């Protein structure tokens, strides 16, 4: 291969775009031709400089990212007010936090929340240990518990995985499990639970929130990124489906 012939192949060679035969011919030539080898090194160096110069971080990316997320989110308002909401939450926590978080409420609520968490952990660690209800049976038991349909949490990004009967504190609850690509949440529904607690309970990396006045509890991991959206969607859905 002549040096002149090689010149036009150098560009695709450094981009790994040559076929095996041509790449071999070029590599063979480069091994014995110092000027061409130098030319190839210069080309690579030039590309590196261009990459470095081109990939300078852009200012204001976080704001722009939030704008994009807002645009695709039906709950964009929640994000827009998240900063203010966080400040309000801190203030609320300082004022009434001790009453909510540190108050052990009563031993039964404590035991109940612990029991809900155990049910969730059971599903995470041994997903097939409790049988899923078939869709027809699930609709039937949900109606008995006062919900006309399976709540959809799709607007919060979670799809319904399945429903089963679980028994925290030996009380019969319907556990509805939802999932997105990397998180799992559960709704526990029971009309027979007559000691609804208020506020949020955090324990062992989980958050438990009662949804409205009904005995429906949302159990999530503390790390849930869109907790505000999820809670809002679940609450509205439960209210809409409650008979």
């Amino acid at each position, binding site marked *: 291969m002549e040096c002149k012939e090689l010149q*036009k192949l150098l*560009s*695709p060679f450094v*981009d790994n*775009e040559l076929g095996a035969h041509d790449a071999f011919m070029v590599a063979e030539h480069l091994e014995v031709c110092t000027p061409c080898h130098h030319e190839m090194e*210069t*080309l690579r160096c*030039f*590309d590196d*400089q*261009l*990459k470095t*110069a*081109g*990939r300078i*971080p*852009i200012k204001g*990316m976080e704001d*722009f*990212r939030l*704008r*994009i*997320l807002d*645009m*695709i*989110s039906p709950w964009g308002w929640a994000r827009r007010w998240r900063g203010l909401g966080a400040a309000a939450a801190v203030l609320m926590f300082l004022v009434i936090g001790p009453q909510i978080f540190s108050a052990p409420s009563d031993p039964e609520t404590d035991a109940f929340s612990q029991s809900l968490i155990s049910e969730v952990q059971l599903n995470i660690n041994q997903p097939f240990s409790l049988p899923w209800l078939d869709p027809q049976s699930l609709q039937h038991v949900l109606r008995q518990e006062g919900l006309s349909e399976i709540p959809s949490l*799709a607007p919060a*990004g*979670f*799809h319904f995985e399945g429903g089963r009967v679980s028994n925290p504190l030996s009380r019969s609850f319907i556990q509805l499990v939802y999932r*997105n*690509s*990397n998180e799992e949440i559960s709704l526990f529904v029971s009309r027979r639970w007559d000691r609804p607690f208020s506020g949020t309970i955090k324990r062992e990396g989980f958050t438990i929130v009662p949804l409205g006045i009904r005995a429906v509890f949302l159990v999530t991991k503390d790390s849930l990124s*869109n907790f505000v959206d999820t809670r809002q969607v679940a609450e509205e859905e439960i209210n809409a489906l409650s008979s």
Partner: protein
Amino acid sequence: MRNRASFENEAVPHLEALLRTAVRMSGDRARAEDAVQETYLRAWRSFRTYQPETNCRAWLFRILVNVIKKTVGKRRHDPLAEAEEVETSTKVIPLFPNADGGERRDIQGALDQLTPEFRNVLWLVIVEGFAYKEAAQMLDIPIGTVMSRLYRARRELRRFLTTSVSQEKERASGHGV
């Protein structure tokens, strides 16, 4: 199921690369942001049909290039189509229509001096790391054109930078003052 969480995981991480490219291609931050917003809106609307095993980044860039082409086309004649016409009629596209005698000798400045046809290919392949085939699909040009534009753009960009540096050296040593 293709939901918002998957969209956030798969599409949103490419936001900065898309904005960077849009700024390069449209030459203006505000127009670039509009184009990227439009890109994400279109991508979100058709995300249900997006196949997870395909290259999300290349898919987004294809949408972006189309959006920019359309917005540029609204403002004036499509420079890409114009350039294609010129190229196929064997006329030479000027690589540095705004060259100002090497005033801007940095690599970013030199890149700005390139005509969009050459700059876009160089940008997509070298800076963003797309394969020739992907760049060809995005820009809607034959793969051979990608190769020839890259070859010429690299050569001319280097020549431009080298000339600028030597002119600067001459000025510094007192010649040409």
